[in-house]
């Protein structure tokens, strides 16, 4: 009896570990290839780390890679901070006030959840052309701040976690609603803001289609654009372009390692009903 149990347990472990190894395999190959001279990758299969990582790093950083990193970072940070602020304010209003038009406006937010983001792409590009905002980071920063899912998620979160009496007692203390929101409510909803922060940062960092159609000046490129550039322009240096891929995904994985709890909460909340 005991023996049978441990046998099935070993089988379960084997299945889970095997699947996890397959999941990690592409990452492993990517990292290993980053440590070789291109010629070595061309000639034979490499499964253990080489010693050319530093040289490849030099090659990558001799290009504009740091600039692309900076572009992606500052775009993601501003878009994300704005998104957190805009969505938490709207979520607060929808969760804690009764006002005329609330139902209709929230209905609009919900309907927006079903609209694919590519629907307005042609219109957006033409609008940006008219506003002389093509080849700027504007389209990567401002439009993503208004995200219906974040508003929806903030609303649901605040309905459950922010006591309604808070506003009343703050008003009695002579505190206006904005002050009350930033001083009292904002600290309470920290877990929700972290979730939105992570989702928004991820969305911004990984965004490919918008920069693809909006930016055609190389110095403005963000990381996804930069690595496509690397894999075509610098394609004779295979290893260096693979190292660029590794460096592009690294920040995301590090951030996720620290915030996975909040991020997974956020993803689960998106399912509305677990």
């Amino acid at each position, binding site marked *: 009896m005991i023996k049978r149990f441990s046998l099935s347990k070993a089988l*379960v472990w084997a299945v*889970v570990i095997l699947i*996890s190894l397959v*999941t*990690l395999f*592409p*990452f492993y*190959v*990517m990292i290993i*290839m980053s440590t070789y001279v291109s010629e070595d990758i*061309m000639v034979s*299969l490499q499964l253990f780390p080489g010693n050319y990582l530093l040289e490849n790093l030099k090659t990558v950083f001799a290009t504009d890679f740091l600039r692309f990193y900076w572009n992606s970072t500052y775009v993601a940070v501003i878009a994300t901070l704005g998104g957190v*602020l805009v969505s938490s*304010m*709207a979520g607060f*209003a929808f969760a804690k006030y009764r*006002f005329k038009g*609330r139902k209709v*406006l929230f209905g609009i937010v*919900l309907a*927006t959840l*079903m*609209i*694919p983001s*590519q*629907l*307005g*792409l*042609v219109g*957006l*590009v033409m*609008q940006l052309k008219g506003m002389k905002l093509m080849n700027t980071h504007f*389209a990567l920063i401002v*439009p993503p*701040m*208004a995200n219906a899912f974040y508003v929806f998620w903030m609303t649901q979160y605040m309905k459950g976690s922010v006591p309604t009496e808070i506003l009343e007692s703050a008003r009695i203390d002579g505190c206006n*609603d*904005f002050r009350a*929101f930033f001083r009292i409510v904002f600290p309470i909803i920290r877990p929700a803001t972290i979730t939105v922060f992570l989702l928004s940062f991820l969305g911004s*960092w*990984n965004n*490919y289609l918008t920069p693809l*159609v909006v930016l055609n000046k190389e110095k403005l490129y963000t*990381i996804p654009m930069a*690595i*496509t550039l690397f*894999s*075509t322009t610098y*394609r004779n240096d295979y290893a260096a372009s*693979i190292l660029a*891929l590794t460096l592009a*995904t690294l920040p995301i994985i590090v951030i*996720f390692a620290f915030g*996975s709890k909040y991020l*997974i909460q956020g993803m*689960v909340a998106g*399912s*509305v*009903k*677990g």
Partner: protein
Amino acid sequence: MKKNRLDKAYPYLFILPFFLIFIAFNLFPILYSFAISLTKWDGVNPSVFVGLENYIRLFTADPLFYQSILNTVILIAVAIPLQLAMGLLMAVLLKDFFSKSRGFFQFVNYTPNITTPVAVGLVFAILFDTRIGTVNRILMALGITGDYIDWLGQPVPAMAVVILLLVWKYFGYIMVMFLAGLSGIPDELYEAASIDGAGWWKRFTHITIPMLKNTFVFLVTTSLISGLQLFAEPQLLFSRGGGGVVGGPGRSCLTVIWHMYDTAFKRFEFGYGAAIAYGLFLIILVLSSGSIKNIVKEED
């Protein structure tokens, strides 16, 4: 009294930033796109109003539109059941047999989902490269195949690689969702069934599966919607070898968004490109109308 009026204004002030940005840069472009879809426009010369001509062309005279829908549907019709099965398997195993290391395996298998799609496409292009790809080298070293397999150069293997990529990318997300769903099932149900003599398999089919119905519906809906928006991964997968073959070998992996991108931003048919986006939106609307009803009902 003046103070009272200000109190009434607060909620509107709080939603103002969202709706300002939303109207200016989300809603307006969507409506503008529709207006553009009724024109013939290359972006340089003045646009010409053509009414529904683009839509008539889309639904009656564009074999690529139907092919792109068919491709996308085939890709996700194979990928979704596979990723659901694998995600469910992992979720059930992690819940029943792992407690300490559950978080670790969850993290590992969720990582592909957050990885930059462009990088995913390029890494898979490297893995499945004919001459220097890791997959072919391993297969040949193990003696499974004697010759290089041209994964990305033929329609069927190319689609298989895209499907593999999709399953790899999404099963971890599905696992996380199923784990959340599983945690909502009361333990008493399982205990009662065990007392009645139900084995693991019977408990799985009679309790777990029915109790996860809502999660299934949600996951199938969202997988369909996100699957129909597939673009970056296949585009990058086939960017390396072929010098920019649109849609991969025989256009077997041309997705709807790829078709739209190519039409509007490579061939500068902005009016027709916008019409393709609306055509896709119509399809998504039909597919997701059920879920919208559910969420709205939930709200009231």
